[in-house]
């Protein structure tokens, strides 16, 4: 019956994401940002052409002239999920468009995720609190708002659900759940590259259990089938394939797999041999085993050392060594999502980890420790931390509530029941004291990151959390009044948390960055320039025209304008991106030659004003310089800075990108070229283009599209002028009426 009582709040908790995500409709039901547009395009292809075509899809609309094998390079989980939902709905004659399904996949899966969190946390109150917290935690909301159609949308559910099934198997020792666990892991592998987190975390936990002497057959059941089935299934996903056994990310699981078998064997032998015989056997086996292990390790080291990156992919390496990216791969470092987070972003994103109590399982502890480390390295992995933090704070909150309500209840009961049972009271008090003091220890440890954040950013939730801490200490001294106060403070804190979450969801995360708005004195202004330009491209250029832009806009261009792009957000070919970067940071003539050699017909640049391409320009130079040595960053810098004012270097002023961007037409409107973001006057005005022509500029001038002029006929000397004259003369006569 208790389980049934919990269903309504759980339903509420799982619908919370929906109501929060509906905030996005404040604007419109639209897909957000960059990557989701690619996923949307893939889903469209899938729903139109079917699954077999999807696996064999060679996309010639991107990375021209190389193309991209989509079926083999994409994590198919998300698109297959949305495609299946779409197919089911349409076969029931519910005619939802692919776009609608894609937009609402994330909120639906966030509901599943909070349900999975409830299951994982277990325990009545804690599970519900954790589920409710997850439904609201801003860092997860950033990935689960309607329209955020990215891999993480389904992956977080898969992650939590896999952990839940692992714990479930660990508790029951049932092979059924072990198989389910492998399937859940397979779904995770399908959905997101972050599956390596699972395949490293679970072995670590298993190792921890073995080391602490908690080996059991249940542990074996939970782990061995997962590795065998999971690896086999993972190898089925084209994008993973043999990487599932070849790359170093997976080696930890195999090593632990061997270890667990050795341990199992030892326990088995221990069971059948007498203690004396066992000792003899151990010495024998250990001596032989050591030799074998050494050989194996030597072979492995040799294998790993023979590959250039040591068998680790670039992104994983940058995880282990935070300085790796900036040293070797500019492109990974240039993605803001891959950069170490700032401390305020910790506070902004995870406002929940205030007071975890003990008594969480070792797995959850391990989980939270690991995710704290990884999220410290890469801001994107904050997402992995969010469920862990929610679980911890869910447990903590419900424990705190339990303590306070129990003490209030006890006090009230005591008042009515006069003064007997004093001994019992003391004992319970002691218990709660122990509980709370151990909690404090952990609390202080966990508080540190957020405290640092607080210093930088004052938040309304700051004061109450400190107060509640003080209040909680006193709860044991002043039982009744203090615990009521503490309870109220806790509720207040929770309310602040909800307000913060709603605010974050509404203001920070549910703004589709493709549409910008600004509040001015005469109402709301909508800047819809990107879609304006994409629509123009899709209707007014030839279907096979190639478009060059910086890679950020690649996915959107292919999805919305349906035009072939040179580079896109799937930054798999550094040289190609460097070529575009070089062209953008070259003088006009050289740029024209590079673009012409790539068969480009249009160049899209983002103009100053709001989102300035100068910020991207820095990366164009760096990436270009990484491959083509004649592009030197130093040429563009003055005093270690990019300057476009009077002290700018001549190289930067001759660049195509800056030229087209900054100087072109400002002069004509307000008499001086003025860069609004930097508040500096641009020195080079009256820029006249000779090899490109402006064919489109969006309403607020954010996006400009240039067309490469065709090559001129080679005419020498005066012949050129003569030719020009005749041509204009002809056009004049042609204007006349032929009938007269």
């Amino acid at each position, binding site marked *: 019956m208790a389980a049934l009582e919990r269903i309504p709040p759980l339903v509420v908790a799982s619908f919370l994401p929906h109501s929060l995500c509906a905030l996005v409709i404040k604007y419109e039901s639209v897909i957000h940002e960059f990557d989701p547009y690619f996923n949307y395009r893939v889903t469209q292809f899938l729903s139109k052409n079917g699954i077999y075509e999807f696996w064999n899809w060679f996309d010639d609309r991107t990375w021209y002239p190389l193309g991209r094998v989509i079926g083999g390079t994409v994590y198919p989980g998300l698109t297959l999920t949305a495609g299946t939902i779409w197919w089911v709905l349409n076969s029931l*004659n519910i005619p939802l468009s692919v776009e609608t399904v894609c937009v609402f996949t994330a909120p639906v899966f966030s509901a599943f995720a909070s349900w999975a969190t409830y299951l994982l946390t277990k325990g009545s109150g804690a599970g519900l609190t954790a589920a409710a917290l997850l439904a609201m935690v801003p860092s997860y909301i950033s990935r689960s708002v309607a329209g955020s159609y990215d891999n993480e949308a389904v992956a977080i559910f898969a992650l939590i659900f896999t952990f839940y099934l692992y714990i479930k198997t660990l508790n029951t020792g049932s092979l059924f759940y072990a198989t389910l666990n492998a399937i859940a892991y397979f779904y995770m592998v399908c959905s997101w590259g972050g599956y390596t987190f699972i395949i490293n975390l679970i072995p670590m936990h298993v190792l921890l259990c073995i080391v602490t002497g908690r080996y059991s057959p249940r542990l074996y059941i939970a782990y061995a089938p997962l590795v065998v089935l999971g690896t086999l299934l993972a190898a089925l996903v084209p994008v993973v394939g043999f990487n599932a056994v070849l790359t170093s990310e997976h080696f930890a699981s195999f090593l632990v797999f061997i270890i667990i078998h050795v341990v199992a064997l030892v326990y088995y032998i221990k069971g059948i041999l007498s203690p004396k015989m066992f000792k003899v056997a151990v010495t024998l086996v250990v001596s032989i085993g050591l030799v074998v292990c050494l050989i194996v390790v030597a072979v492995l080291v040799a294998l790993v050392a023979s590959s250039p990156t040591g068998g680790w992919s670039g992104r994983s390496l940058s995880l282990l060594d935070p300085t790796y990216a900036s040293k070797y791969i500019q492109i990974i470092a240039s993605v803001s999502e891959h950069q170490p987070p700032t401390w305020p972003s910790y506070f902004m994103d995870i406002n929940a980890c205030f007071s975890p109590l003990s008594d969480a399982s070792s797995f959850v502890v391990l989980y939270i420790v690991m995710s704290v480390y990884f999220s410290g390295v890469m801001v994107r992995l904050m997402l992995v931390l969010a469920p862990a933090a929610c679980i911890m704070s869910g447990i903590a909150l419900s424990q705190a509530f339990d303590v306070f309500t129990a003490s209030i209840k006890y006090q009230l009961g005591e008042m009515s029941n006069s003064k007997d049972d004093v001994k019992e009271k003391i004992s319970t008090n002691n218990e709660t004291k122990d509980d709370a003091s151990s909690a404090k220890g952990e609390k202080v440890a966990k508080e540190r990151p957020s405290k640092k954040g607080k210093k930088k950013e004052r938040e309304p939730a700051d004061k109450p959390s400190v107060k509640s801490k003080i209040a909680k200490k006193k709860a044991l001294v002043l039982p009744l009044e203090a615990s009521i106060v503490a309870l109220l403070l806790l509720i207040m804190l929770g309310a602040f948390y909800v307000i913060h979450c709603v605010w974050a969801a509404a203001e920070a995360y549910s703004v589709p960055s493709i*549409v910008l708005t600004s509040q001015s004195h005469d109402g709301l202004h909508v800047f819809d320039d990107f879609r304006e330009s994409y*629509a123009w491209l899709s*209707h007014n250029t030839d279907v096979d025209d190639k478009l060059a832009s910086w890679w950020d806009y690649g996915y959107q261009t292919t999805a919305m304008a349906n035009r072939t792009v040179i580079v896109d957000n799937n930054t798999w070919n550094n040289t190609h991106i460097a070529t575009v970067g070089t062209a953008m940071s070259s003088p006009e003539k050289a740029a024209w030659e590079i673009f012409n050699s790539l068969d480009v017909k249009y160049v899209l640049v983002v103009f100053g004003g709001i989102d300035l391409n100068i910020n991207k320009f820095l990366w164009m130079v760096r990436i270009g310089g990484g491959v083509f040595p004649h592009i030197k960053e130093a040429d563009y810098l003055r005093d270690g800075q990019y300057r476009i004012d009077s002290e700018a270097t001549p190289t930067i002023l001759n660049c195509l990108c800056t030229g087209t961007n900054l100087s072109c037409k400002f002069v004509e409107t307000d008499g001086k070229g003025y860069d609004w973001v930097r508040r500096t006057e641009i020195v080079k005005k009256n820029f006249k283009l000779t090899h490109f022509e402006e064919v489109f*500029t969006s*309403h607020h001038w954010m996006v400009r599209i240039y067309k490469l002029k065709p090559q001129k006929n080679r005419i020498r000397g005066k012949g050129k002028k003569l030719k020009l004259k005749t041509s204009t003369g002809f056009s004049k006569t*042609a204007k006349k009426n032929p009938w007269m």
Partner: protein
Amino acid sequence: MAAKVSDEMAARIWIFVVAVALSLSLPSFASSQDLQIVNAERRIDLSSHIVKAFLTLKVENIGKNPAADMLLAFPPTQIKHLSMVQALAVTGKKKKKAYLPLDVKPSEQPDAPNDTGYFLVTFATPLTPGETVTLEVLYILTHSLEPFPMEIAQSEAQLVYYRDSAVILSPYRIKQQTTYFKTPSTRVESFTSVEPANRAGKEIKYGPYDDRAPYSYAPVIVHFENNSPFAVVEELVREIEISHWGSIQITENYRLTHGGARHKGVFSRVDYQSRRSISGSSSFNGLLAVLPPRVNSVYYRDDIGNISTSHLRTGYKKSELEFEPRYPLFGGWRATFIIGYRVPLEDYLFEAPDGRRYLNFTFGCPLVETIVNKLTIKVVLPEGSKDPSAVLPFTVNQDLQVKYSYLDIVGRTVVVLQKDNVVPTHNVPFQVYYTFKPIYMLAEPFMLVSAFFFVFVASLAYVHIDLNIVKK
């Protein structure tokens, strides 16, 4: 019984005889020698890209037989651009003047010279010998202004050719005639001179010409400036979905283009925004759609999302939706968009005296001053509707389809009406009749209820039935 049958037979034979006699006698009725046009005045309005010609004809029967109808002739270059022809007979004089609409049908003539196209105007009462009648004819031409030069830059004005004849093409002798061309501005580059012809302000006058023989033709070209928006909808699909639960949902898919002189070279937003009157004068940005009154849930979007530049004014007699495409349209540029809205059911759905229901809605395109090259109207009837039939004042291609929408099983009948070359004059009411039993309205709620019911029954059964082979 036998007598009755023979009566019926007799009646049929009689009808047949009459029909044969009529068909045989037709040529003698409409012989071109029998009619002549005493006076003809033609005013051609060239101010927008929809060319409207107003023709006033005074027709006299000089033959010996009464004439039931007369022919209007059009040169082959015009016949394919001809969007509609309407004729009115003027009855009464001065203040008692009244107009009587006449039946106009396209017709084929075996002896047509040079592929001339014909329309047959049937008089209200046959014209007796010596009698005269005054006709007012309106015909509308689309795609008849040819831009020249074909390509213009942003700052140039758009110049167009209009080709026609100085004298009216007609199978009848015309005693006296005059033609006026009205241009949108005073800037006229040139016009062919057929004496007497002169120009005053915005008007070019050809004529009066006396006594022209049948099939006289004098080609003229007028070259003038026309910067009116050449908004051409290449294809418009309007879906009108009837729900007996209280609303009609209309979804309109537009493929719009600028049909004027093609834009060439640079598009400079600075020039466009700062000097709008000089720069980009031939382009257009704002459009106006006239929607029904009491319209609600209006949306305006395209394939990639909502378009925020629109403004709706609801009124008592009509609603107006002012909107802009995502970008201004220059010559040859295209844009697609979708407009959707909902109107209350009771305003447009009625019950006919014979128990059938009918939808009474407006044909054509809601955009003002727009040509639609291909218009498809799909009337989606509710599931379970039978015997659909459409009633229109002009001929359209009709077709039936089936559409599956929310939780449909047998599908909804769709009446598809398709017409090419549609102009705003086609915005007249049309009716679609069908029979529908209200019980079908409950089918889908019943399905949902039973589906939930079975889910709960199944879960009840699952909880209560022990499926274990061995008892625990």
